[in-house]
């Protein structure tokens, strides 16, 4: 006998506050595509850039009420609505989307990064006299995928976000139709991206087989309550390993990094700002939430793996960069080395580590967007001048651009009073705090090696006379790129000199394990005639979708409208063979 009629519909609890940033980004991208198709080239290009900037700003603004709801209203910057109480971290849409400090902060970071990225793309398109409104639309869709990833509380939703992000990024990489390297980069990115997605997905399948679900909260609870032995334990380890391989491909960790220098080299330079900021933020956020939150109790299994990847990436990235003569490839290896530093925070598997990851991602986004904006400008028309020779004597011909690049490079090297120093400092502290001082020592050693390559670039710009084939024309800074550069430089200085504000935010940006809200069965109303509270066992309950252990309070229900006969329910309760505990208070006891 089933309690609920077979046609009863359970609808998940949807909190639109948590979804608005994504909805704005998605609608903005779709409308931009629609307008550009209808306009057929009659609309001037700056309109699309303005549209994309406004969408990103709108996405940021809609994240403010969410921030306020998670952290409390007195912290809201612009928005104040005393009608709504802060609820703290919560999850929505049946528990697959998390709204906690971590997701809100990184959603805002993605929105802000998007503004800078769009400005750089606009400067690039203006120089190349190209019309590619698709470039803006695709970055917006990719940013949407990133926002889904930072909020994903279910492995399948994480995968959907990852694919939204990646599929758009494959096209972005192949976007420059004049350079054959660009299509090559797109193809390589596609093959390796799809390859790694398959590993990632296979990992999810085994975790599903071992734990019986894909929800991160479900996995957390399951692993906390059960010790998996024998074949189940093996399946869990296999799944975890495949998942880590998938992540390692996506964030380009040694030895899964070989695609990254090629893709950075071939991709149009302004889009590399996007790939190295938003894509990394989203992938590391997903990695951190899965490993540190869901697999916290399996830390002994995955921490050594992450430590190994961190050492390889730190050293491999720094050493690989030394032999490069192409600035984009050099920066690609440097970003591999940075990824190693971020792994220090992941590996720590603590709140300190999570805060370090958030600080590092914020600082790194500003640094890398700034650096690749300079690369975009120096590449001149056609996006072709990327070798070290092309940077010779830049300090004399274009002191402003060379000065900014020097500043960003020194910050990446970790010079004090810049964001780079503070980010590296946080990561090292997190590693020491987690008892892996040896890893911190390796990281500092690799930072010394990496400093050499940044200094080499600086010396090339200021102290080497231009070769005969070097283009010595002045590199101007268009207004759009200038705004992006100024913003990045200001952020780097601000984080470096006044790190307290960011630290304060980062320390509250911790993923939270929040039990999903019960599904809505019926609106509570005047007709309610029973107060129903279930306590469901580990096997779920008959008639309910999926296993959903824990307590559920359905509140006041109108039994008649659900097709439940109160007398029948009473008889079932008397029988006591329901398989779960149920506590019903009838307002008007039957019989």
């Amino acid at each position, binding site marked *: 006998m089933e309690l609920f009629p077979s046609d009863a519909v359970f609808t998940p609890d949807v909190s639109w506050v948590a979804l608005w940033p994504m909805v704005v980004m998605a609608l903005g991208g779709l409308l931009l595509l629609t307008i550009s198709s209808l306009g057929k080239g009659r609309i001037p290009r700056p309109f699309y850039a303005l549209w994309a900037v406004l969408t990103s700003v709108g996405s940021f603004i809609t994240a403010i009420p969410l921030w306020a709801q998670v952290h409390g209203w007195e912290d809201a910057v612009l928005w104040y609505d005393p009608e709504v109480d802060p609820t703290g971290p919560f999850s929505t849409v049946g528990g697959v989307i998390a709204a906690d400090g971590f997701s809100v902060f990184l959603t805002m970071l993605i929105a802000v990064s998007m503004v800078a990225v769009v400005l750089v793309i606009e400067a690039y398109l203006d120089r190349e006299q190209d019309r590619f409104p698709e470039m803006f639309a695709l970055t917006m869709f990719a940013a949407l995928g990133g926002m889904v990833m930072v909020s994903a509380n279910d492995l399948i939703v994480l995968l959907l976000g990852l694919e939204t992000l990646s599929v758009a990024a494959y096209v972005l990489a192949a976007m420059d139709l004049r350079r054959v390297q660009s299509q*090559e980069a797109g193809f390589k990115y596609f093959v390796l991206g*799809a*390859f790694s997605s398959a590993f990632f997905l296979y990992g999810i399948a085994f975790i599903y087989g071992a734990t*019986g679900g894909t929800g991160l909260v479900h996995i957390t609870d399951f692993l906390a309550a059960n010790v998996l032995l024998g074949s189940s334990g093996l399946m869990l380890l296999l799944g975890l390993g495949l998942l880590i391989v998938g992540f390692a491909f996506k964030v380009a960790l040694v030895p899964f990094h070989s695609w990254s220098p090629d893709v950075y080299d071939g991709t149009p330079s302004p889009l590399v700002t996007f790939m190295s900021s938003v894509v990394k933020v989203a992938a590391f956020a997903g990695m951190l939430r899965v490993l540190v939150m869901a697999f916290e109790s399996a830390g002994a299994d995955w921490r050594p793996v992450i430590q190994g990847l961190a050492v390889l990436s730190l050293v491999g990235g720094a050493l690989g960069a030394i032999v490069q003569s192409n600035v984009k490839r050099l920066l690609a290896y440097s970003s591999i080395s940075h990824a190693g530093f971020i792994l220090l925070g992941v590996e720590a598997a603590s709140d300190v580590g999570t805060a370090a990851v958030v600080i590092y991602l914020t600082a790194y986004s500003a640094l890398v967007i700034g650096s690749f904006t300079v690369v975009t400008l120096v590449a001149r028309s056609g996006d072709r001048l990327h070798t070290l020779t092309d940077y010779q004597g830049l300090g004399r011909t274009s002191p402003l651009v060379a000065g900014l690049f020097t500043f960003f490079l020194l910050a990446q090297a970790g010079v004090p009073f810049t964001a780079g120093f503070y980010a590296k400092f946080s990561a090292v502290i997190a590693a020491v705090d987690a008892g892996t001082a040896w890893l911190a020592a390796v990281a500092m050693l690799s930072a010394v090696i990496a400093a050499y390559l940044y200094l080499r670039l600086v010396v090339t710009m200021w102290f080497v006379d231009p070769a005969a084939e070097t283009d010595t024309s002045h590199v101007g800074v268009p207004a759009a790129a200038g705004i992006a550069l100024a913003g990045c430089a200001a952020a780097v200085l601000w984080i470096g000199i006044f790190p307290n504000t960011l630290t304060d935010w980062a320390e509250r940006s911790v993923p939270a394990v929040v039990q999903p809200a019960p599904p809505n069965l019926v609106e509570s109303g005047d007709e309610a005639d029973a107060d129903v509270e279930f306590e469901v066992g580990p096997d779920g309950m008959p008639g309910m979708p999926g296993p959903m252990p824990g307590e559920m309070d359905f509140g006041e229900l109108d039994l008649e409208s659900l097709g439940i006969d109160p007398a029948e329910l009473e008889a079932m309760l008397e029988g006591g063979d329901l398989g779960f505990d149920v506590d019903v208070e009838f307002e008007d006891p039957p019989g």
Partner: protein
Amino acid sequence: MRQIDLGYLMLSGLVFAIGAVGVLIRRNPLVLVMCVELMLNAVNLTFVTFGRAMNDMAGQVIVFFVLVIAAAEVVVGLGIIVAMKRRQPAATADDVSVLRG
């Protein structure tokens, strides 16, 4: 939990391995895309096997998500291959070598 049917798991593992090895050793871009498809479909079989063993519908629902993802990836992949082939009609994965890697 019902007994997991090991045969299906082994079959999916085998198909996944064939796909993975194919991506690593084949040259034709189209065959690369087909190999990725093999890998994704092997994962689908794994999901259905586990879903059946646990008597849980979620395993089969996930397969639909994976199918959509695979379709989207192939559309983009084929688009990139067409753009590449237009420039170099005889391109194989070995010719994609302007970039050292």
